[in-house]
């Protein structure tokens, strides 16, 4: 089974987000970067599927030259090779992103049996690139998946819903978006990192397409900075905490 997983480089935001002066990006001067959490699980799932059923795993990202760091991270945990669609770092809208991914998928010598995405990216959260890619390629797509099992006719996928888990039976080739919790991603080992340095990255620069969902500026939500009432320090706080629990009706 040949599996492709698409990931996005996003900043590790920590406790407080600040913006650049032009209000078009998060200030990342002091931040590290990672891949969106759902996608990290997608990479882990790709590795497990290939380990269990053979084939090869590929990671793709559309992003600035620095996003090679995220491709190497994914190869360090076991992905075989990478495709880097290099941008100048400006944000591509979902339609342009999907079109570039479709172009890269169609340019492959060997087709993919499965293309994995995260349900939504951690930063933009547009919820649509995977569905656009699947539609353009004429492939079935399921969303928000927390379990993938290979069955004789294809893939059995489970999605968490209020009532329990909805089940889909999916023929391959197919596109699946996964959610964090489908697995617990492994950490890269030192030998894994060494191997990742030698794995191939197929880099190209797709032409940009005009944005039809165009970000104008970012806005920090109105500060809900509260002044917390300090109930105490250490174990001595127990009595005032219990009094507060009574006052708000949590304790009778």
């Amino acid at each position: 089974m040949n599996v492709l997983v698409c990931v996005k480089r996003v900043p590790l935001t920590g406790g407080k987000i600040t913006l650049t002066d032009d209000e078009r990006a998060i200030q990342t001067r002091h931040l590290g970067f990672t891949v969106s959490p759902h996608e990290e699980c997608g990479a882990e799932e790709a590795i497990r599927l290939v380990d269990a059923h053979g084939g090869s795993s590929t990671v793709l990202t559309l992003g600035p030259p620095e996003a090679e760091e995220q491709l190497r991270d994914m190869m360090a945990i076991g992905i075989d090779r990478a495709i880097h669609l290099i941008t100048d770092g400006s944000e591509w809208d979902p339609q342009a992103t999907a079109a570039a991914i479709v172009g890269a998928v169609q340019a492959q010598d060997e087709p993919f049996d499965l293309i994995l995405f995260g349900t939504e990216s951690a930063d933009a959260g547009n919820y649509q690139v995977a569905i656009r890619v699947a539609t353009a390629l004429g492939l079935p797509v399921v969303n928000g998946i927390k379990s993938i099992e290979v069955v004789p006719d294809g893939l059995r996928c489970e999605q968490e819903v209020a009532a329990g888990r909805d089940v889909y039976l999916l023929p391959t080739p197919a596109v699946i978006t996964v959610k964090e919790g489908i697995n617990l991603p492994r950490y890269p080992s030192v030998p894994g990192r060494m191997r990742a340095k030698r794995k191939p990255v197929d880099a190209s620069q797709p032409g940009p397409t005009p944005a039809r969902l165009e970000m104008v500026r970012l806005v920090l939500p109105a500060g809900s900075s509260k002044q917390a009432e300090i109930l105490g320090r250490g174990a001595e706080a127990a009595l005032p905490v219990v009094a507060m629990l009574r006052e708000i009706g949590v304790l009778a």
Partner: protein
Amino acid sequence: MILCFVAGTEDELSQQAVAFAGSLGLGEVRVVAIDGPFAPAAWAQTLVELGAGAEAVIAPGDDRGNELLAHVAAKLEQPMAANCVAVTPGAPATVRRVRWGGSLLEEARLDGAPLLFTVAAHAVAAEPIAAVETVVVSDGASAADRVVVVSETVAASGGGVSLSDADVVVSGGRGVGSSEGFSVIEELAELLGAAVGCSRAVTSAGWRPHTDQVGQTGTKIAPELYIACGISGATQHMAGCKGAKRLLAINPDGEASIFASADYAVIGDLHEVVPAISAEIRKARSA
């Protein structure tokens, strides 16, 4: 005309989406629900046909609403904006939408016709839905559209207090230190009839199952009281608990960012504070 998909008349996000549609000033709002097992591409084809000539096609900003609208957008090759809190129609329209699970907002131009977007939770107050038209999947849905369909639903295994519905949630973060360390969190939760939650650091370390995670990529909760123990307050976590009515934070670092969102603060090590609170509750009950 605006076509507004709803999951049901009792669904709060659907009620908000219909109220939002009514506020846009784009004429009549046609409210549609679809009967039968969920089949995203086939349902989207049905919406494409019902929405022919509409100024806008919209849906609630939840998993299925976003999924359906993305299918509609892909079929029509039009742009789509997920989780909007404000929309000003025009060519292009201006939208304000949620990023980073609500830690950040974005102003954007949406250059499409019809306007395709979903309505973020709590963008407007819910109003009762006056009339809903329930339809079945259109004959226009192709065989390929019908391939993806829910074939069965496995019921949730009950037991314990559900995280998303609990009135009180007691959560532990990296400060708990280990899987075993959660015994003090569980003890307090049991005394309060509360659900146990945790931060992403905890699930990534494998100390608790992902089903316990409160956060942008976990469960979003809105309890009466949220007790956050040893949690620093990363944006990823706050995106999951900002709906809590009251927040009690217990953390040894008086400068932890969680205190900026807290109503009540205890500065101290959770391993001392939490057992002391449990003991105090027991003492009060036996008195």
